[in-house]
């Protein structure tokens, strides 16, 4: 054994003295070594929290997560899945919100993207203006719309008044609150759909369109039979990204309606409900159960969409 080996085994990480043995080992396993930091990161920040949440969902943890809690199997799942006062209405609201905003955002986004597709004057300015809502922070957006939609002093009712339309309750109404928050979401996120679809449109090749033009296809026919089929993979990407985001919406809902989604839970989606369960009620077991079910819903819908994307491609 040489002197350098003894020294470096005392300080195995000193680079200049790394032994051939260590280096060889490192070299043989380098795919693991280089991936290790990322894997540790994923384990600590994703796998552990999810595993911990799964565990909590199987216990009766409440009050404090450090307090004693016992394993109760699938009891929480039974409680949650049979809860028709808060859980199922929240599921329905989540789906209504997501479905509603997705349809409008994709249709509107496609229309705007088609308008912006071909070069025109002041193109840059229009594009910047359209993207502005996207860069605003959601809580600030929530506060701003809350003021606009205030039933007594808000701008929205003042404007309606100019056209002789009576004041609307907007966010304050039990029935109108959810559609109003959907309106805010559409305002804020349609630009992102535009951005994605515009990228797709710009990469389309001109030949099929020119061929169709020569064959005498009208604008609608060109859109329906050429642009749309070619754009399908991009549209699905937009739906996928926006859909997951919309399912998880929290900031706009909380900023406009506060705890529990309002006094009648008007805008209480699964995310808002789970937040209330853990931060207001300190029901960590039930809350984790709701989150796990929510997680499965998101993974499920993602899976359906990605398989559709493969078909489309």
């Amino acid at each position, binding site marked *: 054994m040489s002197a350098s080996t003894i020294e470096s085994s005392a300080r195995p990480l000193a680079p200049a003295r790394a032994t051939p043995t260590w280096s060889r080992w490192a070299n043989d396993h380098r795919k693991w070594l280089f991936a290790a930091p990322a894997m540790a990161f994923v384990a600590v920040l994703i796998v552990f929290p999810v595993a911990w949440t799964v565990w909590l969902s199987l216990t009766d943890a409440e009050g404090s997560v*450090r307090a004693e809690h016992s394993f109760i199997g699938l009891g929480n799942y039974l409680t949650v899945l049979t809860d028709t006062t808060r859980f199922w209405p929240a599921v329905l609201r989540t789906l209504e919100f997501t479905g509603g905003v997705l349809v409008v955002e994709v249709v509107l986004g496609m229309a705007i993207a088609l308008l912006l597709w071909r070069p025109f004057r002041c193109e840059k300015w229009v594009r910047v203006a359209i993207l502005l809502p996207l860069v605003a922070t959601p809580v600030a957006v929530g506060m701003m719309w809350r003021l606009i939609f205030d039933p007594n002093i808000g701008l929205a009712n003042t404007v309606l008044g100019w056209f002789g339309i009576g004041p609307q309750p907007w966010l304050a109404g039990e029935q109108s609150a959810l559609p109003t928050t959907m309106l805010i979401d559409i305002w804020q996120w349609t630009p992102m759909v535009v951005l994605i679809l515009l990228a797709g449109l710009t990469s389309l090749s001109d030949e099929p369109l020119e061929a169709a033009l020569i064959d005498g296809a009208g604008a609608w026919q060109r859109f329906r039979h050429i642009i749309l089929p070619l754009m399908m993979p991009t549209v699905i990407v937009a739906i996928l990204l926006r859909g997951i985001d919309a399912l998880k919406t929290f900031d706009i809902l909380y900023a406009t309606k506060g705890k529990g989604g309002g006094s009648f839970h008007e805008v209480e989606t699964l995310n808002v409900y789970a937040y209330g369960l853990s931060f207001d009620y*300190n029901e960590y077991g039930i809350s984790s159960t709701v989150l796990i079910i929510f997680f499965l819903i998101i993974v499920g819908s993602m899976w359906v969409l990605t398989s559709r994307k493969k078909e489309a491609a």
Partner: protein
Amino acid sequence: MLRRQFVIGTSLAVAAALGLSACGGGEDQEAGSKTLRVTLANHVWTDNIKKALPEFENQTGLKVELTQLGEDQLSDQYNVKLNAGSGDIDVMMYRPLQEGKLFAKNGYLADLTAKTKSNADWAWSDFQAGPVAATTYKDKVVGVPIITEQEVLYYRKDLLQKAGITAPPKTLDELKAAAAKVSAANPGVAGFVARTGKTAAVTQFSSFLYSFGGDFVDANGKATVNSPAAKQAYAFYGGLIKDLGPKNVSTDMGWPEAMAIFTQGKAAFYTEADSLYKNATDPAKSKVADSVGFAPFPAGPAGSKAYNVPSWALGVNAASENQDNAWKFIEWATSKTQTLANQKAGVPGARTSVWADPAGTSTYPKDLADAIAASTPTGVGHDRPLVVKVAAAREIVGQPIVDAITGKDAAASADAANTAFQTFLDSEK
């Protein structure tokens, strides 16, 4: 090949060294640290204490690291940090009636019993009995009350005068009549405004409930939110807002929203905590600053019974390693001098001596000081159900309020709430 092995070895060693050095950063956070981490809520009290902080730092040589948050953010912060057993909060401002029982039960709050008895000059006995009861859990003192609150009637002197009303209403019936008269005389101005959010309204509704002769729970611990008195109170409070409140009223209003309507000149009467009075009388915050009057809470069939509660207290995080210094801060911030200074700046304190001292109320509007003095003897020591999971309980007993405001069957709603509340109470036993 060799060269590549060397590069791999070197980069790994550098990564390891960086990782190790990153772990070594927390040395100045050890036991008895000179840095004290204090978490306070956004409140006039906090603003005043902040101004006086250099005095404390000079006296003790400690450095105060202050975190200031809104009520809800503060709760969330505590839920996350205290749940994790984190020691990076030393002094914490908390709401004894909202979170006190939960925190004490979870063992988040350090036992201060011995410390409160250690200094005769500081005088623990000077603190009012009601607030002290609220910061005591199972015979252990877990907090020092700093702010007390009573519900009073805010009103607009000018509007009343214009409507020919000479004195503020003394009873709830008079309040209703006066509100109707004023709003009829002033189109666009609501007769009455108050909190409407399901949980936010519970505390301000409580004085109505007591004045009608009801309470949330009876002496035997049974839910009583569907008693005849409670049903009357729900119908009265909700009806007042539905019939004489702002048009298209939202059912999400907490005090900031309700106060805004009042200070924008859009309402004649407003029932609210006295500790918020500066928002109405400060010309920078209120359009009606010079015409605001105050009166004791109007009497119902059972008399005028406003709540009189400790809204905030200071506690020490049980996981803190700096508890002795944390106590030094509490002792200073709750001293007679600081309490008096704060009370002069508009924050009602919990010490008997500052109320006995004429200087203690010298800066208050005279009618407000009179109103507080008049309703203290009949005050009720809680403004929400005294349970562990207060947030959940407030949602249950608050439901009939919003149902009454939106014109639903409040009596049926009270019956449903009572059943749910009883189940809730049973689950806490």
